[in-house]
Structures are given as structure tokens and as C-alpha cells.
């Protein structure tokens, strides 16, 4: 039997009446004062298995190179999108709490990273920190396979496959749920199955599930948090954008456009790298890890 010992420890970070689950790795090779070290804060997407194949590869690679990392599940992980509480904007205070945990551990330098949806969250969070009056400990941003605008990406994909319901139908149905009108019941919500959202069949692998509220907060035209292009220009710390050339979800020009916005806004350190990989970077995890490590080594 092939057995793999994974690196790190699963931890819980208190968050109000709730908690944040995360995988924390502090390499034993760490030497010297921790406050001078860097920790990569990675934001999980929807599912949230801290040990799954694609999500665990990067922390493993970082750890081998001596970088600490914290991979966290936000409200959107563990089916949050399906049960109505996975609201994009509400993940931001959770990321704050994770940064607070790292500060308590002793880290003063954090690079925030995400893949896909996690990349959108990373850019949004970094843009908020850049505008705070207090100095931020976010020293860099890594966004992998990140959409120019998640609502636009989803609209394009649904149009392409002929989703049922259509994007416009969902806009109508979710109207007012994301920001409830005065006098309406803010708790009212409904689960919706979107067929042919990912492909031409009605098979489960081509299907998506949301509630009207979580969809409104993530994919509707009024959802501003996941519109990455609105936020990336506010970030002044180094940015690494990595794209897969065979990504069937995010088009290569989306990364180019994001990079252009960041540079045009005055960011002097924007790096764009394209790898011969699909959206998941399956089979290319080593190259992805090395790309990230090289970028970190060159800067921190």
C-alpha cells in the first residue's frame, strides 16, 4: 500500500461564535527569528478538503523550500455556497482573523495566495488592506488562474453551454436577495441547481449548485467583490499572476488585462507567467510550485 505522510497540522482559529479550519505548516528547517520569515496565507475555494490532491501540492512544495504556509477554509468552503451562508464579502473578516493568528505566531510578513475563486478573494482582500490607514503586513499577492471578473466568467461559460436556468434568469430570480429590499424577509433564500453550467450535458460534473443569495454575492452583475479588475489596481505590493494556457474556464487575456490594470495603476512589480497547464494545474503542480518559489525567492 502506498502511504503518504502529509506535512503540517490541522488547526482551528476562533472566529466570533464560529471557527476557521486551516492547515498550518511551519518547516522544521526554519532558522532565525520568525518575525523575519514569510508565511504564505492560502485561501481555499469551494470544497475545502485540506488534504486533497490539487490543494495540498503547493503547501508541500513551499514547505520543502522552507516556506511556512497556512491554508484556510473560508465561509465559501465546505458547501457554504450550497447552504446560503457562503457570501463572498463575508470571507474578508475571516481572512483578517487568519492574519491575526499568523501575527500571534510571530509572522510579520504575509503573502496572500489563491487559486481560481481563492485568487479573487486574495486580490480583493489585498486591495482592502492597501487602503487601510495602518501599515499592512500583506507583502505580496499570488493569484493563480484568477478571473478578470467572476460574474463575467460565469456568464460567458453559462451562455456557451446553454445553461438552465440562463444567467439572465438567475439575475432576475436573485434580484434583491443579495441586498434585500426594505420590508422583505432577509432570511428568504432558495437552493438552485444550474444544469449545463460546466459542459454540454446534464450530468452532475457539468452542474453547479448555489442559493439565490450566494449566487447573487458571487456571480450577479451587482456583485463587486469578485470583479477582480475593480480591485487589482489598488494593490501596490508585488503581484504574481499565473495562468494555465489550457485553462477552459479562464481565458489567457483575462490575466493579461489584470496585469495591465495593475501596472497602469502604478504597481512596479507585476509578474505574469503562463504555464502549459489546465485550470487545475493537474500534472503541472511541480512547475507551479517552482514558479511560486522562484518568485518568492527573488523578492523576500
Amino acid at each position, binding site marked *: *500500500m502506498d502511504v503518504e505522510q502529509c506535512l503540517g497540522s490541522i*488547526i482551528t482559529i*476562533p472566529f466570533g461564535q464560529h471557527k476557521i479550519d486551516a492547515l498550518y505548516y511551519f518547516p522544521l528547517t526554519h532558522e532565525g527569528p520568525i518575525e523575519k520569515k514569510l508565511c504564505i496565507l492560502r485561501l481555499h475555494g469551494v470544497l475545502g478538503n485540506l488534504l486533497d490532491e490539487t490543494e495540498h501540492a503547493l503547501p508541500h512544495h513551499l514547505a520543502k523550500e522552507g516556506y511556512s504556509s497556512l491554508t484556510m477554509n473560508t465561509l465559501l468552503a465546505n458547501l457554504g455556497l450550497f447552504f446560503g451562508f457562503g457570501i463572498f464579502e463575508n470571507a474578508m473578516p475571516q481572512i483578517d482573523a487568519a492574519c491575526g493568528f499568523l501575527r500571534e505566531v510571530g509572522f510579520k510578513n504575509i503573502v496572500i495566495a489563491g487559486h481560481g475563486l481563492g485568487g479573487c478573494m486574495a486580490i480583493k482582500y489585498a486591495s482592502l488592506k492597501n487602503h487601510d490607514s495602518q501599515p499592512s503586513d500583506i507583502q505580496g499577492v499570488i493569484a493563480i488562474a484568477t478571473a478578470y471578473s467572476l460574474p463575467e466568467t460565469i456568464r460567458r461559460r453559462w451562455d456557451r453551454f446553454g445553461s438552465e436556468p440562463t444567467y439572465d434568469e438567475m439575475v432576475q430570480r436573485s434580484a434583491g436577495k443579495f441586498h434585500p429590499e426594505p420590508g422583505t424577509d432577509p*432570511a428568504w433564500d432558495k*437552493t438552485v441547481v444550474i444544469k449545463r453550467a460546466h459542459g454540454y450535458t446534464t450530468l*452532475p460534473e457539468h452542474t453547479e*449548485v448555489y442559493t439565490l443569495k450566494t449566487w447573487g454575492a458571487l456571480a450577479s452583475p451587482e456583485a463587486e467583490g469578485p470583479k477582480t479588475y475593480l480591485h487589482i489596481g489598488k494593490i501596490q505590493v508585488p503581484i504574481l499572476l499565473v495562468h494555465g494556457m489550457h485553462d477552459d474556464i479562464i481565458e489567457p487575456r483575462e490575466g493579461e488585462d489584470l496585469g495591465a490594470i495593475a501596472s497602469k495603476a502604478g504597481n512596479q512589480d507585476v509578474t505574469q507567467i503562463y504555464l502549459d497547464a489546465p485550470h487545475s494545474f493537474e500534472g503541472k503542480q511541480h512547475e507551479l510550485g517552482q514558479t511560486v518559489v522562484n518568485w518568492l525567492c527573488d523578492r523576500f
Partner: protein
Amino acid sequence: MDEILIHPEQHLIRFRAPDGFLVTSHLLTKDFEQSKNNFDTPIVLHIHGLLGHFLARGTPRLLPHALLEQGVWSMSINTRLAFAGQLTGKGIFNDTIHEIDAAVAFLTQKGFRRIYLLGYSLGASMIVHWAANRSDPNVRGLILEGLHHSLPDSQRRRLEKWRSTPTYEEIYERAKGILGDDPYHSRNDETFVIYRSRGATSEPINDEIFTYKSWWHMMGPEAYAAMAHRHMGRIKKPILIIRGEHDPLIEKWEPEALAQIVRASGNRNIWVRQIPQAGHDCMENPAEMLKEITGMVSHPPEG
């Protein structure tokens, strides 16, 4: 809030089930050495249900750490039904037998000879299915918390109670039409929502989401693997059934009815315990829950 911060005693381990599924697991021990002789060390193999997160909530989250404080080691595993397996169509109940096979093999490889399987809710049903079809001498007993007499019957009752949309019968008819004569090998499947399956309103928290294939094998009227009452009579290991006295999902008669089946088959090593001041999750009364489990593990009957 119950705080669980960093536990240095944890080991995060991955291995493959015989059919290739990647099992992720969380081993909590004190002074675990791979080379050490673990023959006499009891270990609890904890089978997760749907959420599948080691830190999600309730028993899956709290029990392993509480057991460790009592000196009892444990390993939790995620099956293919965890992390939305029932939504993707890959979470077929019958196939979880492979994950339990792999986990028992892993522990046996590490030298453990006193393995106790513990399942919570859906996880308990998986263990019953496994134990009725396997006979591993290193597995010394089963601890079944919140075990349904029959998962399909429980769901049918629940859907009728809350007047779900669609109804149980409507789902069955639709599933037959989509999956055809051979549901397990069918190339057709679809995701669907059952509104009001867990409560009177259409709030998402009261909904359940399945694919027809995952529903067929876990909740359908022909989901024989998920009907504990059909399998209990074939289990020869010692069994402890635990139910919270206020469990809203498991009716009071269910544990005793299952115990009667076991006794009738000639297995006298069966105990039923009601945990006071607890609902479906018996870790709502951790002292009583731990007393029962450590009692079973520390002073096992001869199976």
C-alpha cells in the same frame, strides 16, 4: 467556543483504496512510532459522514481529541461521500467499503491488532455494511452512534413529515427513468434538490442535494446496503450502539430493534446505551459518551 489549536500528536496521512480512491486521514496519537510494536494498543477508526471534515463539528470534530486526552488513539478517515460526494455522483454508498478496507489494512500494516470501528450517523451505516461483508480478526468491535435502522426508511419518513418537494415516490420514479435497469453502471445521472426535506420551510438549510445515482444507493427503496437491519444479523463482532436520548433523527425503538436482530443471530455481545442530555450528536454529553467508548475499548468482551 471549543478551541482546538495545534496538536503536535497529529499525523495527516493519505493512501489509496483498492479501487484507486484517495483516502485522506487524520491520525491522533501520543508518541506514535512507525516501528513500534502496537499490538496491544487499542485504536478507534472513525468513519466520517457527509461533511467529512476532521474539524467540522460535533462528534467528528470533538471525539478524537477527547479520546486522546483519555489516552485512546484514533484515526479519522474521509470516505467518498465526504466533501459533497453525494452531489457529484461519485459518492456511492456501497463503494465506501473500499475506504474502510484500506484504512483497516493501513492500521494493520502499522501493527495495530486492536482496532475498533466507530461511525457517526451515516458513517455508522457504512460500518454496518462493511462488517457484514468482512471478517478481519484485528477489528475487535464496532461503536455505532446515531445509527439508522434503515437510511431509506428514515428519509422516506422525514420527507413525508415535512411534505417535501419532490416526494419520496416522485424521486424514485424519476431515478428509475434516468438510471434505467442498471443504476450502478448507468451513464446517466443528474443533480437534484429535495426542498423541505429537513424542516417546514424552503430555506436551503432544510434542503438536501443528491444525484439520482447517489440517492439510489443511499436512500432509494432498493438501497439495501444502507439498510442496517438487513446486515446486523451477520455481524459477529461485539457491538455498542449509542443514541442520544433526545435524538430527533433516530427514533427510540431503532437501536433496540437492531440489537434484537443481533441477539437473534446468536451474537450476545451487543449493548445499547442511551446518552442522556444529548441529541443526534452524543458529544453534547461528552462525559457519558467517553465513558461508554473507553469502557468498550479498554475492557472489551471476547468476540
